[in-house]
């Protein structure tokens, strides 16, 4: 029974430490995925056609407007324009308070390298994508 108490205390202490670092000290890149990791993960989900999972990276405002089917259409249009995505990685942009910008660099079969610049905002310490225009305007 003692081990259960100690384990629970360890988990609670770790969560308290993370909360302190994120909310008190304002950490935006170490204990939470930085903006470039968020956009990279988002585009990876689109690339592998996991649109439902891609929804997790969107802000609440966007989630209210966008459904997985719309993400699918946007990705299909991007594919038709730029070609099949073969590789993705995130590139650092800027961070100002609760706003940030980061790019997903995509490598496509036909179009070579392209950069998709996303705007992000922070909610409960987590970075979320604010607009999907880069998928449309590229």
């Amino acid at each position: 029974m003692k081990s259960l108490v100690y384990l629970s205390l360890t988990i609670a202490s770790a969560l308290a430490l993370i909360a302190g670092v994120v909310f008190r000290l304002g950490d935006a890149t170490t204990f939470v995925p930085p903006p470039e990791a968020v956009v990279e993960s988002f585009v990876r989900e689109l690339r592998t056609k996991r649109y439902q999972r891609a929804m997790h990276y969107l802000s609440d405002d966007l989630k209210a407007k966008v459904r997985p089917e719309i993400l699918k259409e946007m990705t299909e249009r991007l594919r038709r324009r730029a070609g099949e995505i073969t590789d993705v990685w995130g590139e650092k942009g800027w961070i100002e308070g609760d706003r940030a910008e980061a790019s997903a660099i995509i490598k496509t079969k036909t179009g070579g390298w392209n950069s998709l610049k996303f705007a992000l905002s922070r909610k409960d310490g987590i970075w979320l994508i604010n607009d999907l225009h880069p998928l449309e305007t590229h």
Partner: protein
Amino acid sequence: MELRQILLRVVFTYVFMFILLRLCGKRGVRQATSFDFVLVLILGDLLDDVLWAEVPVSQFVVAAGTLVLLEVIIGLASYASETFSRIVDSQADLFMVDGGLIQSGMRRERMNEKDAEMMLRRQASLERRRWPEVKNARIEGDGHPSALKHEWAREAQQRVRGSLPMKKR
């Protein structure tokens, strides 16, 4: 991604996992059951996600912590209740009695005669001609074989080693 961020995440997760596994009271890797192995695989996958900043560290702490908590709860429950232990822990299966193979036990463990031969050779240095020395052999709950020899075989072995005097003719 900056190296400093990776370094901090690695240090945090290492310390967290270290404390968690120490409190979990796990025995050595060799004694791990197949379920422990699955648990380690899941924890490894969670670690991969957190080290490359694909998920917030708080999500990792909750996921890994809950898994280890469940493992400890199941361990405590099987310690407290024999019935529960029978349900969650794998039981030892006999595959040899008095030098003869037990087909039902071998079927349950999905092993053939060659597997039994190899296990006895490795575990008890017993070649096929010495199988009659075996009182019983089983696959233990952790998946490892164990063999118990007849009293006469053990005495004979000790005599050969010199720890018992040779019988006078």
